[in-house]
């Protein structure tokens, strides 16, 4: 199961990297989101998948699954959600003001 997850994470990361390298602003943001999800899945996988019964429900089981990674990932997802919202707004304002979402046209500086 872990091996499968690692492959899934690898695919998500490569698709995210591909999107990062495109020239459209929106695609770049989608790439960042995908990489974030990849990192979250990686966290879940590296902490070990399903090695015991659910924690906090009863005290009979011989071993319990680790609840900490899920709590951390939840925090990270919330933070990522806020960041994405901010990025989308910023990208929209930039698009409105510059009249383009092509990152190639947003290069360089006016004064150099």
């Amino acid at each position, binding site marked *: 199961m872990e091996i499968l997850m690692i492959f899934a994470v690898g695919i998500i990361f490569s698709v995210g990297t591909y999107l990062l390298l495109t020239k459209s*602003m929106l695609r770049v943001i989608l790439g960042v989101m995908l990489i974030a999800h990849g990192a979250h899945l990686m966290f879940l996988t590296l902490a070990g998948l399903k090695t015991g019964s659910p924690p906090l429900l009863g005290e009979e089981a011989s071993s319990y699954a680790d609840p900490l990674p899920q709590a*951390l990932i939840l925090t*990270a997802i919330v933070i990522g959600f806020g960041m994405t919202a*901010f*990025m989308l707004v*910023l990208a929209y304002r930039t698009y409105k003001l*510059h009249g383009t979402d092509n990152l190639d046209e947003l290069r360089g500086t006016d004064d150099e």
Partner: protein
Amino acid sequence: MSNLVVMPILIPMLIGVLLLLVKDKKQVQRIATLLTVLSMIILSGYLTYIVYIDGIQTIELGNWPAPFGIVLVADLLSSSLVFLSGILALVTLVFAWLTFSPERERNFFHPFFLFLLVGVNGSFMTGDLFNLFVFFEVMLISSFILISMGSKKYQLRESLKYVIINTISSMFFILGVAYMYGLTGTLNMADMAVRTSEMENTALLSVAAVVFLFVFGTKSAIFPLYYWLPHSYYAPPAAIAALFGGLLTKVGVYTIMRMYTLVFNHDPQILQILLIVGGLTMFIGVLGAVALYDFKRILAVHIVSQVGYMIMGIGIFTPLAIAGTYYFLVHNIIVKSALFLYAGIAERITGTTQLKQMSGLLKTHPYVGWLFFITALSLAGIPPLSGFFGKFALIISGFEAQHYFVVAVSILTGVLTLFSMMKIFMTSFFGEVKLPDPASAAVKVGGLAAATLPLVFLTVLLGVAAEPFMQFSMEIGEQLMNPSDYYIPSVLED
């Protein structure tokens, strides 16, 4: 166990949240922010004193015992840096009041200024790796808002890049935390250090170390990850650029200092990487400064070159080198922000930051010129100012550890730094009066110059009173290089 440790994080956070509610009351915002920053300075100064007398202070949040809950740790390094960030916040706050337009101030400048301080102080104090990530995010989102506030064309374009690059590096931060949690099963940095020192197979640990070097390197703008910095720091107004230039990259350097002395001290090859990267960072940064002819841009690329010195100090990895790194870090926080503020003053007078369009400011505004001169010499490392002693300690320790090549690069960089600072002084301050608008010779900037005085005073003080301060730095070097005697027991055995 001391509740004092949490105060520099808690107070700005509470006041910041309350200030969100009173958006239009300018005086309330100003006074509340000023009082918060002052209380932060007093509390963290007192905290530094206690840590100096009684040793490292910790607090276990929610009373969860150490390796399981989140701990905040105030050792000499973190508490003194919190104190310094308070002083810097005070100066930039006053400068911001004098320069900002009312609209900018009304649009939540003060709350996000305070949230930025929450993030910075939290990153300095926390002893938990995931908590460090959370505080980094607090700091970043506030910096995103401060940098894009105003929505000018150039500003939006550059902040978009800043935001995306920093968000990507945050994602890799999560990845690094995942590696470390998978390897050690803990997030507490002290506990992690104990477990990594017992580890037999350290190959995976080196992988995590490199991931973290990428993350912190992006935040602190080391070679080859510095490309976002010169443009982004050019965009915001001087007060915000000074705060960013002084603090944000230094938080990255602080985390490198903390993690690589505490957790990733297993592999000498990583120190080699740090040395090479440090040398390249300082040299390429200063080359940019030599080539450019824009006041703010020169300062922005100088940040990169100065970070290189600190990375070099961490790479040398002796108590003296760490002490020198700390001294240089403190010096740089003070001087870099002061220089950004002078760039702001020059822009206020002439309306431009192009060096070739202004000349003779020394005749029209002599006090600004001479204050800039002192700070510039300090940045270049001329004795008896503070820059000299930091570089001196770094170079001596480099010789002792026989890293001759990187020391030679650092000396060459020092010369080029002096050259580029004098280029600013000679073209824009010295010489005949030649301003884009003749009326601008009469612009009054006395208040602005007075606001920067504390920073100039500190750089002179750090140079003149180098002896006691160097001893303080040596103590920090000792603490950081021997975590099993200082940091680890104070966190785990309370």
